[in-house]
């Protein structure tokens, strides 16, 4: 079963007009957010999106935008304390953000 977080919070935007139907977004999404519908991609499961940014990065036609980031409270808190962007604290042994 797919675990889910809050509904209607993600920043994912999809512009169907730019889509050429290459299917790359369907391929790279680790959460099954996109699906192909004929010759265009569609957003099939918006609330499953984790804002990793893989689809935007791999869309050669600028059809997708999303604010990529880490869904990690620890990183967000540290980012605010240090005045930096929230980044995954992987190199930082005090967080499992990066398993």
């Amino acid at each position: 079963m797919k675990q889910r977080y809050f509904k209607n919070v993600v920043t994912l935007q999809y512009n169907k007009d730019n889509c050429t139907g290459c299917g790359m977004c369907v391929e790279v999404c680790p959460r099954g957010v996109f699906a192909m519908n004929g010759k265009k991609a569609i957003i099939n499961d918006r609330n499953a999106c984790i804002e990793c940014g893989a689809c935007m990065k791999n869309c050669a036609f600028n059809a997708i935008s999303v604010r990529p980031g880490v869904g990690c409270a620890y990183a967000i808190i540290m980012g605010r304390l240090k005045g930096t962007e929230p980044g995954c604290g992987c190199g930082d042994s005090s967080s499992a953000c990066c398993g």
Partner: protein
Amino acid sequence: MFLNFSILVRYNFNKERIMVKSKICCTSQDRISQKTSPKWYCCTIETPGGMVPKISTNLTLSDYLGSAMARSSINRKHYHIRPGLYATGNPDKNSFVFVTANYKLTFDHLRKNMKGIDGWILVLDTEGINVWCAAGKGTFGTEELVKQVEQTGIKEIVSHRKLILPQLGAPGVAAHEVKKKTGFTVIYGPVRAADIPLFLTNELQSSGKMREVSFHVLDRLILTPIELAGTLKYCVLLFIFFIIYSWILAGNASFSQVLAKAFHSFLPFLGAVLTGTVIVPVILPFIPGKAFALKGWIGGIIWAAIYLFVIRNTFAWIVIVPYGLLLPALSAFLAMNFTGATSYTSLSGVLHEMKYALPFILVSAGAGISFFIVIAVIQNLV
């Protein structure tokens, strides 16, 4: 999560000696000496692009120990391997090229799943960080991939123009740009290295399941040691605080009595820490609510109730209030920090959660601490 391709090591072998990169590599000093070479290294093989080190697909006890240590935050920063090209089996110009990160846990996961596969492994310099996180940071990215493709001479070693990347590297790599810059087509392979053999028999197609990240009970359990390790420093400080506090109030009690008293004071907090870092993460889907902080708070209130019930004959009833405020707040905060270890949270979602949870946690914890101070002052003055 992201563990499979992604898990890994920094290896503390002598960097100078492990020179593996083609061409320049052939003085005896540059070869990996038997003495200092890691156990997974076998020998070098000759290719049109130069010498390439061949690696074992069997993990040894030291690999498993290293991985257990890295997961507990011990020596985690020294668990990386040298970027560059490696070989498994007896690859030739037609063999596939698998790209991975230089965290040794990740590298180990890949090579153990390369049993019986003749292939090339191209290791990117991700600063010892797993594929998923490095992709988020951009170190597992287009630029580094292009650089390694150029540096390793892979173009002369293989005749095809395909690179197989772990799918979780996709947030960092723009396949179309790699194609433009190197001529290589990026094919995103399965999320888990264990699916590689199936991916190859499926003619480089990932089925739905192979593309999605899973997050089962074991995936969560394996992440808890590091959550716990992250709190260790604070736990030790708190325990020392209780020792000093008990000692000041001890009168002429013996050291062991002081220690016992300190431990009694420390126990409820230790329980709240374990609840927030281990128990709640492991049984996550079975606790109601979407917000991690709420799940942690529920766990914390249950722990507080159990603890107070067990010691019900030994305390003044008034302490229910500060314990009830402080312990669940602590568990809620720690559980909220587990958001980063899961595979289904988003930045927007976590911001949404924090907007409500963080003020609540701070107020609740602050009130609890203030209450304890008031009780302590009254008890010791009166």
